[in-house]
């Protein structure tokens, strides 16, 4: 479920959806074949997760201060030391 770009339609080239062009170009770089079965699966995946990726890309996260030395077995340190 890569990014927001493939999810949005590119109306300048209606013959092939943006997602298909993005995937085929990427696959060509990586040496993968983009057969119809693969593309069909990817379209379903994108229809489910594309909107969530869009939401993530547009979320205002600029105010989130970094958590240094993250330890996932414990709460964030600044909270722990309150």
């Amino acid at each position, binding site marked *: *479920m*890569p*990014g927001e770009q493939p999810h949005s339609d590119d109306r300048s080239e209606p013959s092939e959806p943006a997602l298909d062009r*993005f*995937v085929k170009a*990427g*696959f060509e770089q*990586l*040496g*993968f074949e983009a057969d119809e*079965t*693969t*593309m*069909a*699966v*990817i379209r379903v*995946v994108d229809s*489910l*997760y594309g909107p*969530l*990726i869009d*939401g*993530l*890309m547009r*979320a205002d*996260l600029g105010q*989130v*201060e*970094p*958590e240094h030395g*993250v330890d*996932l*077995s*414990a*709460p*964030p340190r600044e*909270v*722990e030391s309150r």
Partner: protein
Amino acid sequence: MSLLDAGLTEQASAIASGEADPRELLDATLSRIDDRKQALNAIVDTFPEESHRMLDEAPRGPLYGVPIAVKDEWPLPWRAERLGAAAPLGPAPRPGESGPYRALRDAGAVIVGIANMHEYGMGSTGAISVYGPARNPWDTDRCPGGSSSGSAAAVAGRLVAGAVGADGIGSIRFPAAYCGLTGLKPTFGRSAMSGHHVRHTTTIVSGPLCRDAADCRLLGTALFGEELRPLAAAGLRIGIVRGEVWEDCREDVRTACEAALEALREATGGTMSEVSVEGLEHTLVCSILMTSSEEMAQMTPEGLEALGDGVSPIARAVLRYRMLTPAVTIARAQQVRTLVRRSLATVFEQVDVLAWPTVAAPAPPLADPTVRLPSGPHPADYANPRQAGIANLTGVPGISIPIGLSSEGLPLGLQLLAAWGRDGLLLDAAQTLERASDRSWVEAVPPLAAAA
């Protein structure tokens, strides 16, 4: 009742007291696995010689002589993991002493078989596996849940009393809910994990799938390497988060979970209040981004291209598509992780546990793993991670507790989350809820096991 049908604690005590012969239990377990193989396909490999050798050499630990199944996700000294798939994702796996193997061996347990799993752990239903799907003992046409599908089906089907699963985005909790079991996703880093194929994971943990909280405590103690002592869950402060995790669930699921929570509140003399978690709406996609990118880190395009025809078309397509994930989404998922961790830390100063349904609907059919929710029909693989991903993204522990049956006779599960390191509290709460319901749901027997 045969010792085969007893829970883990009961099996361990009967052996420890000399009432039961562990060799007889092991042989009976192997026979039952064989007898129910066709119906459940839960255990995909047994190795009687190695199991007997483990028993011969077993120390008198807390699980002495008790047969346990392990998900096909870790190597054993005599067998490499296959991840329920036809081909490895990275370098060819090799047999070895994984963390769960050592933990079980040191506790005196006997590994009796390898549990089926959803292919590469990439699904919440168990519907796809190179071995064929495991089946739900409550209805063998239904999904057992995934990705620890065989672990849950084996315990619910009374093949073993305890199994080790792995949870990267709910993979212990979903099958526990679908099969009517108690499943604990430990705090990140607390349970044995070495030898896992995703070496740099920040989301995946091993954990127990058993019938009740006491059994999970016993198996969890072995996996944690430290005792999870029971405490009274008195005055439990329960937090409710309104939103999709409650509202977009099937009505019977919501109603059963609300009733169970009220019973828990009453039994503990506790309180229930609404709280909110910042960034919750992003946890589904961010947990998937983190887990999948860490798994992809060990793969090469050449390796993916070389996956044979035995790998499902879905896995082949999704894995290749993941290679195109923009780096910025991973960076943003990290930011969300930070945001949600801070928010949870604040929330867990106000409440002891957060609660919502483990899954939005009971087990869907294997032939069509779609769930019908208020927002419409969705693949279960879309609806389920929404309920569970937050625990993996942030590291907090979570548990699924059986709380009833649907009108179709399928198990329903309630999920509780607690602050980092409070795994024991989740077991205490589960045990309190068991008592409050007269242990009705933890002792409910699936038709397949009851008919035998």
